[in-house]
């Protein structure tokens, strides 16, 4: 499986922007998931793909350019994936990451989901016993949202139409309890 580094993803963004500029096109994307964590936080992991939502612009030209880049680099054609789209909540959780290929010639504008938004997505759908728990802990500390009450407020802010059910409240409660426990504690 491909493992894309932060540098490789940024280089692909530059190439995407260059292709779009030359074609007289422009697109804006918002990046979510592991790629958004990798781009914003000091982490050692790499990502297999870039989960993105096309916010505006020429969708067809963007995806065609992404396929060209995949072929040139030997990446999977799905390296720029829109699978995340169905999991998004209210708009407003992103921040500008960069303009590509550069600030004066813009073919691609990239936004990234902020850590608190990524945390809300994790809290809403976190899989127990998988990497999600570690990612959520990283995001909770990065966004300074570490209490049960703050986590529920965060969910309400970004997913107001989907109040957490009793099961989800229990999971978030246990996550907050575990997050705030000393490392050696076996929280029951």
């Amino acid at each position, binding site marked *: 499986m491909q493992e894309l580094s932060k540098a490789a993803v940024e280089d692909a963004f530059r190439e995407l922007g260059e292709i779009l500029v030359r074609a007289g096109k422009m697109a804006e994307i918002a990046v979510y998931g592991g790629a958004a964590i990798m781009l914003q936080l000091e982490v050692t992991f790499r990502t297999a793909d870039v989960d993105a939502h096309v916010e505006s612009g020429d969708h067809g030209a963007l995806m065609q350019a992404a396929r060209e880049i995949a072929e040139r680099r030997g990446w999977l054609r799905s390296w720029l994936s829109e*699978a995340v789209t169905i999991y998004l909540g209210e708009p407003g959780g992103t921040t500008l990451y960069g303009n590509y290929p550069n600030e004066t010639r813009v073919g691609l504008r990239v936004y990234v989901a902020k850590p608190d938004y990524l945390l809300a997505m994790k809290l809403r759908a976190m*899989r*127990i*016993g998988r*990497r999600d*728990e570690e990612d959520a802990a990283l995001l909770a500390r990065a966004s300074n949202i570490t209490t049960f009450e703050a986590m529920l407020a965060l969910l309400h802010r970004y997913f107001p139409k989907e109040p957490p059910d009793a*099961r989800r409240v229990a999971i978030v409660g246990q996550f907050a309890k575990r997050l705030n426990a000393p490392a050696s504690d076996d929280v029951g």
Partner: protein
Amino acid sequence: MRPHPTTLAEAVRLYRQHGEGREGAFSVLLDEFLDAFYTEIDPSRRQAMIDEAPPRTGEERHDAYIGAVGEHLARRWGLRIPPWSDAPWREVAEPWFVGMMGKGLSGLLLVESPIAFRRRRIFTEAEPLRRARMPIE
């Protein structure tokens, strides 16, 4: 760049070659395999992706979990349960509530854990192998 695991056995082989001792490596490879499994729509090809017996890792929890994955994917997606998954060493001796929250959610996990996991004394959530690419029913 290492190859993309297209079978469960290959994911375990890659773990043994590249990942043993690396924190999170097993989970990464399993997720990559699951993405390949979920994007394959042909049942016979899906069956082939779980049919080959994965090698033993020697780590009790990993070996049991791999057995549960093979059996669960077969049950969940209407395939034949691969015989290798029933090896007696593919279970844990003591109940295992997975994840850092596991014990704190024991009441929930005891109820939810699918049979392929529960019968190996592994307690997890109802849909433990979900991914963004998992088909929506």
